[in-house]
């Protein structure tokens, strides 16, 4: 049970990390928020922190052998999910932006 929760936490943190990474770029930040102001610079750092956090969670849940295979697959899945949302449903990323502007 804790294993499933750790994996879920890893997936969510990968996705939030990727979403922040995308929105740290002005083009995507404007597409999501509609604001012309530049995205906060700390977003990039937090994004990387979330991705490293997801690596640690995956390794903790699955051990080194399965962990090192799962993590890059989570990265790819999250990155493509973010890219497809930016293409068709950028408003779905707005809540991440809202947290980032608090």
């Amino acid at each position, binding site marked *: 049970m804790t294993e499933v929760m750790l*994996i879920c936490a890893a997936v969510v943190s990968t996705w939030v990390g*990727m979403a922040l*990474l*995308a929105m740290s*770029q002005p083009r*995507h930040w404007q597409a999501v928020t509609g604001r012309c102001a530049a995205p906060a610079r700390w977003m990039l750092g937090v994004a990387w922190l979330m991705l490293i956090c997801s690596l640690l969670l995956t390794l903790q849940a699955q051990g080194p*052998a*399965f962990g090192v*295979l*799962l993590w*890059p*697959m*989570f*990265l*790819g*899945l999250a*990155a*493509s999910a*973010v*890219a*497809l949302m*930016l*293409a*068709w449903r950028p408003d779905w990323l707005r809540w991440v932006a809202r947290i980032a502007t608090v």
Partner: protein
Amino acid sequence: MRDSSSLAGLGWRKRVSVLHTWAGVSLGLLLFAIFWMGTLSVFDREIDRWMMPATRVAPVAIDAQYLDRVVVAHTTALGAETSFWQLQFPTDRAPFYSLTVRGRDGRSHVELLHPVSGDVLPPAGSLGGTGFIFPFHANLLVEYRQLGTWVVGAAGMAMLVLLVSGVIIHRRLLADFFLFRPKKQSLRATLDLHNLSSMVALPFHFFITLSGLVILFATYFPGIINTAFPDDRAVFEQQALGDYRRAPAGVPAHAASLSTLMLHAQQRWAEQGAPGVPRALRVWHPGDAGSFVEVRRAYLDRVAMTQQTLYFDAVTGATLFEEHAKPVRTAQRFISGLHFLQFDHWLLRWLFFLGGLSSCVMIATGMLFWAQARSARHAAHGVSGAKWVHGLSIGGVTGIVIATLAFFISNRLLPQDGSIAPDTRAAYEVLAFFFAWLIAMLHAARQSWAQQCWVIAVLAVMAVILNALTTHEYLWDVLNHGRWQVVGMDITLLVGSVVAAVIARRLNQREAHS
């Protein structure tokens, strides 16, 4: 004004771009076929269950007594003409015992045994995923002088070159990382999709290609083994692979209980700190005083395909040899394991399936971009190159998908009552695959992705309906019985059908607008 060094840099990148373009165009079709079949091979055993309804038995736990109760009786009945036999134990993905018996004439035959009753299951009459789709991926079904293996290896090397050169020529790697603009003109959208599918799954593309090459090190670099072990290949097999062999004594002898040996092996693995179940049990020279038993541990719980093989004297039951994989061997087995995916891990299996699909999208959009970018220019100059590449891309991409579906459909349409010999039936399925591919290739001359996508959408639904009609296992029934392998294949076919229909509709709309 640029200085000369940056111009030289530009020239180098341009040259890499030419390499990427031409290696991609000339090998795209081959790479797509290898990656498509490899992606399907992720679920080869599930495809087997779908195509071989007689093997859809409920999984049971491995029972040591099964060996003495069923297998020994079965192999003894085969008589003294047996020189070797191997039993593969059931897993959730292949829930039956598989017995391979080799006669003194060197010929082997395989029988599948029901995991409870021990009855021989009827012959499948199909090559299925493990007999057709996987070998297509590994050697293009060309076994003559390992030619197919070498072609696949060369394509794998080219894939590594394409990945590295692709990263070099991608000008706005980070700036365009998340960029996909489906509403832009189709050339732009194709390139976006090519870049996106390449970049998000880059680690996957890279390690899956590299591991595919590492698996076959003994084929691609035979010189290494010959140099390190110049005199005797058997020494390599014992020291590096952990194989043990001894010759028959020529004196008949009565064998000890195999069930007891299996329990003994499990106890030994537990002592080694890795309790587990056996994957395979092999008996060499059965009935002879020199007979020995080889027990291999299943690697369902780990990535590395290390087997901790134990060898016992078949008569006395004494331990003869224990395999302890050395670090390099373990590393090679780990790299092989992440390619062969023999472990029980559904999440990772699905993620690898998606990774494989993204490789397919990357290759297909790469070829499509080449043809799209040149179609107007080639038409203006009266050159037919772009037209040919475009047609071949359609035939190689949607065409092989159509061929695969024809393979599945023929499996459900050909009679299963034994009126066709099993081998002939299996051959007809392969014939259906290549015939459908040929038709799709010829139709590709019409340059219509949309039409072939509609065909995919229809065929995929047809396969699901035919499975329900011919096996009387309906989607909702199977949900109740928990046979996830067949349900999974049916649902994947339906999802594929919807995706193909959506793509076909969008392509039709685009054509209507332009």
